[in-house]
């Protein structure tokens, strides 16, 4: 399949179409938002399912095959918020706290984008390492911690450091993701018992969830003006830069073509579940309109539709 075919394949997936439906609904002033209890329940389901899958595969993967990707994940988690921060300060002239807040989001990972990439590869018939799901759990937290550290000297109202760490590590999404990995790794073959709930319906649940995400993202669009032109450009260019670096690093770490694509997508994606909550508490004077609009309303739809096939094309080019 050539690149255009892949874009087309991706755009015509039920997940992406569901996302578009959510956007359209909000634009015609209708409301397809799920009740909050369901949104929260579906999020928990997705996080746990990803963790379980990653943990199950982690337990079976030989350590030497694992160590490269794991190190790459930690390395990019620690460094990418730094260059994001520098770019925002240098080219965007943003204040320290706002720049750090945004860097926390782009250094961390979007679980839904990750999942969409897996679905894309399944559709395209490209295999990937099963333990990628576990890497998500390792990529989520470091960038948030690094970015908050960058901001603390400038912030006048940062929360105490202990409280911040507790917020990041003990956050619901981190607990579900890491808890899922732990259960998956410990459960062994009995994991089969829960497959009909956590594996088989997964992509359908994701479709329902993406309708909701579309509705949420579209509501943020009205904040675009508040975010300003620079941030819009940043939210489109930074994923491409991070994605290219991620593809190169994934390839270097010995991942397969599919694994490299997923790794690139993880690096390119911006968190909008774990990071916003942690940043809100740790850096209260950062403006949520800036970090949420860029990550949720621009970068997420971009990655979902165009980004993923592009990162795959890069990975193919590197693998050739």
């Amino acid at each position, binding site marked *: 399949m050539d690149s255009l075919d892949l874009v087309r394949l991706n755009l015509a997936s039920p997940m992406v179409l569901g996302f578009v439906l959510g956007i359209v609904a909000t634009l015609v002033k209708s409301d397809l938002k799920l009740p909050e209890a369901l949104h*929260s329940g579906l999020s928990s389901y997705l996080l746990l399912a990803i963790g379980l899958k990653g943990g199950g595969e982690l337990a079976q993967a030989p350590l030497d095959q694992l160590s490269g990707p794991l190190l790459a994940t930690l390395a990019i988690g620690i460094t990418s918020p730094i260059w994001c921060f520098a770019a925002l300060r240098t080219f965007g002239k943003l204040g320290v706290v706002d720049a750090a807040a945004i860097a926390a989001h782009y250094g961390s990972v979007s679980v839904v984008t990750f999942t969409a990439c897996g679905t894309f590869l399944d559709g395209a018939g490209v295999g990937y390492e099963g333990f990628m799901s576990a890497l998500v759990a390792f990529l989520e937290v470091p960038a948030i911690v690094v970015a908050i550290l960058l901001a603390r000297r400038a912030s006048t109202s940062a929360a105490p450091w202990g409280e911040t760490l507790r917020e990041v590590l003990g956050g619901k999404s981190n607990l579900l993701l890491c808890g899922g990995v732990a259960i998956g790794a410990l459960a062994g073959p009995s994991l089969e018992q829960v497959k009909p709930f956590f594996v088989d319906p997964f992509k359908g649940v994701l479709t329902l969830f993406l309708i909701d995400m579309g509705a949420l993202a579209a509501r943020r669009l009205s904040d675009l003006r508040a975010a300003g032109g620079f941030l819009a450009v940043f939210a489109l260019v930074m994923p491409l830069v991070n994605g290219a670096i991620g593809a190169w690093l994934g390839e270097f770490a010995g991942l397969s073509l599919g694994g490299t694509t997923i790794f690139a997508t993880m690096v390119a994606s911006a968190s909008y579940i774990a990071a916003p*909550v942690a940043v809100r*508490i740790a850096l209260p004077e950062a403006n949520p309109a800036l970090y949420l609009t860029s990550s949720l309303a621009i970068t997420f739809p971009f990655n979902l539709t165009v980004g993923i096939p592009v990162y795959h094309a890069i990975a193919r080019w590197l693998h050739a």
Partner: protein
Amino acid sequence: MRSPAGSTPDPVRTVALKRVTIVGEAVLESRLVALIRAAGAKGFTRIACSGEGSRGVRASDWEGANVKLESLVSPAVADAILAVLARDYFEHFAVVAYVDEVHVVRGDKYV
């Protein structure tokens, strides 16, 4: 539930107390509860809600929208709650707080 149906019970004496109401971002919930407790409140009621205001910013839709906390307290405790709120939360967070007076059955339990 014991009394014979239809019998008229005695009228009830109530105590005037302050009701402090706080509406704020859901991510603040545990902090606001701790604040209320620390200021001396004996209890509170928590209601999930949403809303719009002048800022309209929310940390995350994943943690839910807003939370409304209501606490029946003495006037002194009410003042203490509002003072800490005003000092620590009003600048950076989406929080609304107000006080009114209600007449509480067995109100002495709450002061």
